[in-house]
């Protein structure tokens, strides 16, 4: 378990949240969401790491059930999480394009017709 991974993951998440909250430009907000997502993905991958373990692929000859290998489940979770992250980004960017067409601006401060 490498501490650097965790610090990196938490930092990425924090940076993502920071940009979402502080930045007024919509594209930057979408980037913030991306950052946060990748931070979480990094966290998931690094959770499953056992120091000294080998890749959990059974085709390699010397791997027998007793061998010590890295936990495969988080890797699977990360795959799905990356896919989901990609879809969300695609959706977000398409909405941003439509907002630009409709509101003629990308400044979050001026896109607030629904309030109160």
């Amino acid at each position, binding site marked *: 378990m490498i501490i650097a991974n965790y610090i990196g993951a938490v930092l990425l998440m924090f940076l993502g949240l920071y940009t979402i909250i502080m930045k007024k430009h919509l594209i930057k907000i979408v980037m913030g969401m991306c950052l*946060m997502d990748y931070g979480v993905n990094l966290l998931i991958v690094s959770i499953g790491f056992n120091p000294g373990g080998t890749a959990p692929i059974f085709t390699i000859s010397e791997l027998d059930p007793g061998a010590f290998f890295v936990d495969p489940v988080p890797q699977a*979770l990360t795959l799905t999480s990356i896919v989901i992250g990609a879809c969300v980004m695609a959706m977000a960017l398409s*909405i941003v394009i439509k907002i630009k067409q409709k509101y003629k601006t990308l400044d979050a401060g001026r*896109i607030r017709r629904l309030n109160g």
Partner: protein
Amino acid sequence: MIQHFPILSIMSLFLGSFLIVIFGGKNRFIRNSLAVLFSAIPLVLICCLIKPILIDGEIFSYWMGDWEPVSGFAIGIGLEVDALSLFFALLVVLTIFLAAVFSLKYMSRDDALDKYYTLFLMLGGGVLGLVLSGDLFNMYIMVEILTFASVALTAFRNWGKGSLEAAFKYLVVGSIGSAFILTGVILIYAQVHTLSLAQISALLATEGLTPATIFGFALLFAGYATKAYIVPFHPVAADAYMTAPSSISMVFSGMVNKAGIYGMIRLVYMVFQAMSQSAMQYIIVILGCLTMFIGVTMALSQHDFKRLLAFHSISQIGYVLTAVGLATALGISGGLYHALNHTLFKGLLFLCAGAVFYSVGSTDLDKLGGLAKKMPQTTIIFLIGAFSISGLPPFNGFMSKWMIYQAAYEKAALEGSFFYALVTIVGLLVSVLTLASFIKVTQSVFFGQLAPGCEKAKEVPFSMRWPMWLMAILCVLTGLFPGFVNRYLVVPASAAAIDTTGYIDAMMGAGYGQQLGLSPETALSLEYELTGYWDPIAWLVLFVVLLAGLMISLGLGKASRGPVRRPVPADPKYDTFFGGEASQHSHVGGSDLFWGLKHNLRHYFRFMHSMHSGVVNDYALWTVAGTAVIILFMILFL
């Protein structure tokens, strides 16, 4: 064969959405029939499950791809259907079927309807999957699917006022919430190295809560709270319900926020079994009360029909949460009963809003007026919905609110803590404010003078009306026969919410709990004699009184006065009394009602108005701040 029904119902929804993508594009009839067919199948399948699960009390567990747990260690992804899951599943499939039938005609004026139905069925599949799944990460996947589909559906009418903006905000807050859920899931996984709910709760119960699991639990709780739109996370929901098409906002408020509530109930009662600690109860009840009060006060000062309904569904979710947070048997069943009632009458009200939008084209309270003369049936349905949401006795809102107050006040007395007495007072006050805001809508939209823009309004076609009538009748029935609904639906569900060992044994094989030294959970005593009030005799007598009252007044009147004359147009006798002036259009409605209340609470309303600023960053800030508070509270007190 009945074992496969849960997975079949989820798959039928997803299969339906994919088939519509393929075939739905060209031909309208195929698309409509596919949509209705694939929303009817899960309804039938889930109804078949009622007999074994709700009545006999079995718990179905279904391992995907037959990956049975090996030597007490769950590997595969499991579906777990116990009474609680089936209760929510029933809500989900009922709402989907009615919304599908309603949107056939309601959406007929829009284009690209095959994409609409694809997203619609995907949304249904996501929520049904969340409710039935017994695996933590699988619940996260389903949450992502439903968030994805609801964002797309909110932005479906992108020519509408603010729908794109609402979709974007919904997506930002939704993805922050999902990120928290995912982090929570992975923190729990790091601790117990399994994802199946049953095994997690068993292991956590034996090993006890370490700081990492508490942090994970807090993140999961906050994540599901954003999905249920509790107070700090609610403005996004108000925008989304307002701009989405009404059949979709009915689905949103009928089942999407119920999914969030289901997630929280499952987490708090089953997985972490934290409800025994009073600190946990305090935070849920505080959040619930805040949601109740802020939801209804914001609804009072709205100018748009659907935004008002949106804030009401937020406040009703506050009711459900408060009731569930009481952790007494009566509390949980009151909360679940209110969730059922809420789905019924809130769905009904959104359908009425849709009907008004369909026939008049706008839902702005200040522009509408006097629709009762043009749309009599919608008015009656709306009155049934309004009376049942404000909890007037013969309707269903009354029963569940009554159980909630009884539970809250009994808890206040048993624990001697004044806090729960305040909760009861806030609950009763919010119920009156709900009545106030629905009187506002009744006066500004349906009664009063006919607004200039509404002359051409006419009754909505039958295919939209029969789902509304069905829900109205369901509203009245669940209000009249609470004993029946309680015994077969609500009590088994609330018992299942508490009975963790049954859940674990069903999932992981019998006796799994005992090996780990888990004492079988004693189900809280659920027998309470409440329904002495509404037995059918009382109902028969009430009906007789109504008849007698009618006869006396009309009979007396008939004997001694002229017939109730049909209004003759020319005769000024039947004009409205304007103090002598000719009766011109002057409609009191929309925002000029409740002046006294708004004047006295004007500082509060001004503050609340500024808090809902509409800027994405503020909403994100509220989400993160809310999560931080929850995490801090959990770490300090759990």
